């Protein structure tokens, strides 16, 4: 039995993290004496962000490439994978998600390689943590059992708690990290409690078993307690809604996103959300895919639809009032969670299309959000970080390339053709139409209008306004790695917008055999 190749997306990332940790621990720190002085504690791996970031990015890109390679061979041709079920289900959905997660992690690593030295938080732990958190996210996305789900969730979350608090001296970072930690643990506890109830009701921890037990409710001889199942479902949904930061479980998001170093924010916005949505989709469709629970009258779709409308509308309305661009992007990522929820609701009547639209949306969202945060990073430098809209005033004149990149990603987030975001939205709302959720689709589309307002505001500041005299200006940084990440993301945004045929077919092929 050779599991080496079928599991290579996970193995490459996991072992890569260990190797990088060794390299970081035993590598020689490179410290700028003038800045640090001798009284500072020198961290392992300090001053090596460039090398470590590149290494981490290579490892994660390798994970992405291997995901594609396993996809090409096809999980159905790899019988060894059955050995791991039900704990790990490496099907095509999981491979697609693994690709997206590795991509998101790689962007975060590349951005950190430029950001950390620039802002004097040049500490090597970041990179092994990013990779390990990505590993956790991959496990989470592929988990087919409530236990492996919890392990994946915690592996991912613990890494992220540490990433947020990386800037030890900053009280905001500490606040953000603590807030996320407390609320995240609370959510995890809810999930665990829900899992316990489900186990109690059905006698199963694997999702498929739970699904079969749930399907047997109401048949003669069934001993499954329906009330406990529903309670377990609700608790699980609540826990996952925390992770995807759906309104009203979003309270931690803006603070955590704003307090964290921007590459960590990128990782949270991109990978954590993607993994949480992947597992949400799997849990809902595998365990609660019973036709009674999938119907509009008695199941979860109306709950999710309500969450989706609430999430989109509230987040978009609040995002328009923000003065900090980073906080605006945080709320925008909440709003995008609302759009993905629309796609999840659409699985109700069009399972294949709904799932494919969610997967494709997560891909387009990953590249556009990573690009937007990357552009925000590129626009600032030490002591002159781009935070508020005013910092960006006149950037189109001072640094046209950075402004152009930012514009492309914002247009993609706003869903303007011909960018990736447009296709993502189109597919989501098409799936919603196919599920006869007309009102939901129209509300979602009108929400894009609210969204367009605040994305447009950044463009207006960059191109149409002159900085006020004497105001502090954001000075764009120079970093090959950030630029490289932006070039890759920009290419993907345009390619997915103009010729999305292959990834669309892949997403659809993953769910319809």
């Amino acid at each position: 039995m050779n599991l080496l190749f079928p599991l290579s997306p996970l193995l490459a990332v996991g072992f890569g993290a260990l190797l990088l940790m060794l390299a970081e621990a035993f590598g020689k720190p490179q410290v700028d004496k003038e800045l640090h002085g001798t009284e500072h504690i020198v961290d392992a791996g300090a001053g090596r962000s460039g090398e470590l970031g590149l290494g981490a990015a290579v490892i994660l890109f390798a994970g992405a490439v291997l995901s594609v390679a396993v996809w090409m061979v096809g999980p159905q041709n790899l019988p060894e994978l059955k050995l791991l079920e039900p704990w790990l289900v490496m099907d095509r959905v999981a491979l697609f998600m693994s690709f997206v997660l590795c991509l998101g992690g790689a962007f975060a690593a590349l951005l950190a390689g430029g950001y950390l030295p620039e802002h004097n938080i040049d500490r090597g732990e970041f990179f092994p943590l990013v990779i390990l958190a990505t590993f956790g996210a991959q496990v989470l996305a592929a988990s087919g059992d409530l236990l492996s789900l919890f392990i994946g969730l915690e592996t991912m979350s613990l890494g992220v708690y540490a990433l947020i608090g990386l800037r030890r001296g900053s009280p905001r970072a500490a606040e953000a990290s603590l807030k996320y930690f407390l609320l995240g643990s609370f959510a995890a506890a809810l999930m665990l409690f829900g899992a316990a109830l489900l186990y109690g009701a059905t006698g199963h921890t694997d999702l498929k078993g739970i699904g079969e037990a749930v399907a047997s409710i109401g048949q003669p001889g069934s001993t499954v307690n329906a009330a406990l199942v529903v309670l377990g479902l609700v608790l699980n949904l609540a826990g996952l809604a925390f992770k995807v930061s759906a309104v009203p479980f979003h309270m931690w998001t803006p603070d955590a996103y704003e307090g964290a170093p921007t590459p960590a924010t990128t990782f949270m916005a991109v990978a954590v959300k993607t993994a949480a949505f992947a597992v949400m989709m799997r849990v809902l469709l595998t365990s609660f895919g019973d036709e009674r629970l999938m119907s509009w009258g008695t199941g979860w779709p109306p709950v999710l639809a309500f969450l989706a409308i609430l999430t989109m509308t509230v987040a978009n309305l609040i995002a328009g009032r923000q003065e900090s661009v980073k906080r605006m992007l945080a709320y925008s990522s909440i709003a995008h969670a609302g759009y993905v929820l629309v796609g999840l609701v659409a699985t109700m009547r069009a399972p294949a299309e709904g799932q494919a639209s969610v997967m494709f949306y997560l891909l387009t969202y990953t590249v556009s959000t990573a690009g937007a945060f990357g552009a925000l990073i590129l626009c600032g430098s030490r002591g002159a970080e781009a935070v508020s809209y005013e910092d960006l005033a006149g950037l189109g004149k001072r640094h046209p390339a950075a402004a152009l990149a930012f514009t492309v990603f914002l247009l993609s987030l706003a869903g303007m053709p011909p960018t990736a975001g447009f296709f993502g939205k189109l597919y989501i709302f098409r799936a919603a139409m196919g599920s006869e959720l007309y009102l939901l689709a129209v509300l979602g589309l009108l929400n894009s209008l609210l969204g367009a307002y605040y994305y447009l505001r950044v463009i207006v500041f960059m191109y149409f306004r002159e900085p006020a005299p004497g105001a502090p200006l954001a000075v764009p940084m120079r970093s090959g790695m950030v630029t490289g990440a932006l070039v890759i993301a920009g290419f993907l945004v345009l390619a997915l917008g103009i010729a999305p045929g292959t990834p669309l077919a892949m997403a659809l092929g993953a769910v319809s055999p």
Partner: protein
Amino acid sequence: MNSLSSSLVQAWPYAAAFAVGALIPRRESKFERFALGIVGLLAAAFISSMWPEKAVENAAAPPMEWDQLLNLIVFLPIVGAVAILFMPRQSPQLLRRVTMVILGLDFIASLWLLKVPMTDGWHFQYVREWLPGFGIRYHVAVDGISVWLVILSTFTTPLAAYASFGSLKKRTKDLCFSLLLLHGAMLGAFVSLDLFLFYVFWELMLVPMLILIGIWGGVEKIKASYKFFLYTMAGSLLMLAAILYMVWTHEQVAGYVTFDYLALSRLVLPQTAAYLCFAAFALAFLIKVPMFPLHTWLPDAHVQAPTGGSVILAAVLLKLGTYAYIRFCMGMFAGPAYAAAANLAGVAIGGGILYAALVAWKQTDIKKLIAYSSVAHLGFVMLGLFTGTEAGIAGGVLQMVNHGISTGALFILVGVIYDRRHTRLVSEFGGLAKVMPIYTACFVLITMSSIGVPGTNGFVGEFMVIMGSFTSSVLGSHGKLQGGLAAFGVILAAVYMLSMVQKTFFGPLSNPKNKHLKDLNVRETVVLAPLIAMVFVLGLFPNLFLDRMKSSVSGVTARFMDSTREFRNAMDTNPDRAVLLPRLSGALSSGYPEDPKKQTEAPESATAALDKESAQ
């Protein structure tokens, strides 16, 4: 030798036009003389190419249609815009020249469209699969209606660009980029016959126009740019929802996914959905037109936009709304469009032609006055379309071209005075005729054309629209009243335009700041000359335009009436079911396989039929 001499003889008007351009006095560089000569030559070529050629008319060999022509026309500016991004910001002269050359080439290429007799149906059609899994195709073609809008666009954009280069000196790179991108997107929207492709171009227009207003606009530019962007996007998002619904319903009924206009126009939706989808499409287009009460973004956008932006906005961008109404609302939702036409025509007259004219009368800012006059003129266009008669629709299309020419010219003229005085308030002027005689002459002439004095272009279009509304069956018993009110609107147009002209140009030269204003310079003359020439060409020879659009217009009208009948039949039998109409004859047949799956499905259905038989 003989052929050489005959070709020399044929070339003389062009040579003369070139010489006129090149020999304009007081020019510094040779390059500029050469460029002006080219402008003259192009104008001559344009006017001469509009006359139908007699020698070529040979039924056995129809003129060749190069199917890549539309791709060239649409993508030349877009590729040019991308190329501009990689050119040095420090040499604005190079950027301007490249832009002008690209726009000029695009114009020449678009003249080829006139070489083909515009018979009913699609011309220069080009179809390629884009995303087959999604039913999305790259499908472009022109007919007798869109060809004029394409040419209007390629004709006015270079003039607008040339005028802008005179007054906007900073951030030339951004200017060139947005002009080219806007141009390409507008052309793309005029020629695309796939709803997805149309939507992409429709949205692609927003960003460059936003840049034009936002960077070079006036004091309130940011408010105006938000208003423009969000207003337009609100409409188009609802349209997207309607498109997705139609595509999905079509998939249910016909069994295959497609975004193709020709396929979707066969679809009859259930009653409620049909009205809602019509409302969504109409809202998107009427915002763009704009029609009362959705017009409030337009005065802001016009007043704040720089001259070039205003010209493009008025001359071409607004026409997308009216064009799309003919093409998509009347083409795909004939039934609801028929039912709504009488009421909408009332709104177009009351809110557009009459109310906007009264508002225009009270304006103190000349540019705002012209902006409101645009609303009134487009009310005429929309009235023509609502009548559903051949005369009305043809008049509406002609009026689109007229409005593009005369309002475009008016905005250029306002830009001239704004460049000199940095104000546009009527009260600041008076007696300008004494210091700027040529300018005054041009202004008065264009004013006449805008009012619709016989002999100028405005007359023909308005006359046809009013005639159409008198004879219209769609407007019902109120058609005559509406025609009468619309005719009254023409009088109001004379009132507000002439009172503004009187206050600005005649009377005593009271304001001392106006004593030393310079008359039109060469650049401004060159921009205005082709527009003034077109005023007379259109006014005296309207048949050049009407002949080419005739068969398409009658096709559109006939199909509108036919589909209305079909829609009513379908509603009478079962209002809650979507049905697919049989392939309608005429211009809808596009000459390529409509049903991509038909060939593959045919054997299946044959076997299914066999199964049925054996079961029996």
